[in-house]
């Protein structure tokens, strides 16, 4: 049964998404290659943490990737994020895939796949334009 929410990359974004999902009672598992990254998770976090490199598929399999209903990919490296998004989609066919890409141009490689991308750059630009529109 697919019931897990897997978060790859426990940075500010990953940790907050993990905390929120855990609060809502989801079955959460966070992966990061740096053990200290898990310090960002709140005391109340009740999910699992896995320390290791998610680009190694044996680690993903140990982390029950096959039972994931949702994966959030937010490591600090766009190419790692892109690769993991492709793996999640093509190899493990996870129904809901979210990926953060700092470089919006990298997004062309998501064409034709059921992957939802988050571009912080576009969000900032939109916000700026919005604020400027309001203030001037």
């Amino acid at each position: 049964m697919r019931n897990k929410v897997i978060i790859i990359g426990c940075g500010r974004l990953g940790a907050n998404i993990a905390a929120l999902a855990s609060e809502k009672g989801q079955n959460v598992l966070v992966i990061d290659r740096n053990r200290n990254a898990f310090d960002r998770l709140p005391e109340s976090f009740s999910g699992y943490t896995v320390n290791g490199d998610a680009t190694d598929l044996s680690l993903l399999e140990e982390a029950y990737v096959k039972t994931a209903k949702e994966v959030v990919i937010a490591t600090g490296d766009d190419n790692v994020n892109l690769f993991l998004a492709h793996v999640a989609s093509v190899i493990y066919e996870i129904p809901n895939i979210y990926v953060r890409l700092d470089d919006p141009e990298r997004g062309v490689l998501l064409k034709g796949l059921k992957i939802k991308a988050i571009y912080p750059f576009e969000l900032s630009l939109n916000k700026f334009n919005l604020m400027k529109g309001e203030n001037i």
Partner: protein
Amino acid sequence: MKIVIANGKHEADFVINMFKDQTKDLIVINSDKNFADYIVKNNKVAVFVGEPYKRFVLEDSGVRDADIFIALGEKDTDNYATCMLAKKEFNVKKCICTVTNPKNVDIFKRLGIDSVISSTYLLANSIKSASSLEDVIQTLSIEEDKIVLTEIVINPTYRIANQKIMDINFPQNATISCIYREPHVIIPNGSTIIKPKDKLVVISTPDEQEKVVKFIQTTNKK
């Protein structure tokens, strides 16, 4: 033939040196400015400095429609992103990607990269074939591992020694393509007798290889 060589250090230097006289259309991209200078000096070719997984770098260096694109970078995922971009957006015909983690060979291929090379993977495979086949046997894979050639020396204790090929019931999907018997090469037929010290060159599918070797190496029970 248009060839692109993206990133890499001494392996890139070697490959560039190999191809620079064979093709007029060699594009070299390297993200390390210092190493790019070294390549320019050493090989007298132009080097485009930039990260090859970035769209504008591939655009500006003119890799569109290249015949072969080789990614030699240090990080597997960088090479992956580079090759996918080259293939999907720049219509590159064949991408070759090197990886350090041998597990990535199969995954990258499944995700759409034509050819993935890992030195550890190659090493492991050659150890595997060397060890399972003992020191008397050599193997060679052709047609992307769909066919294997196995070279095997006949020991006098083998059951098939001194027998006619037609009498030994040789496994299917495998053929003795030739027999090397000092100093002659024999193209065998059914009535050829296999003699001790013959070197058999057997052609088979990889799946059959182990069976064939076992079959040949079966010894006489005495």
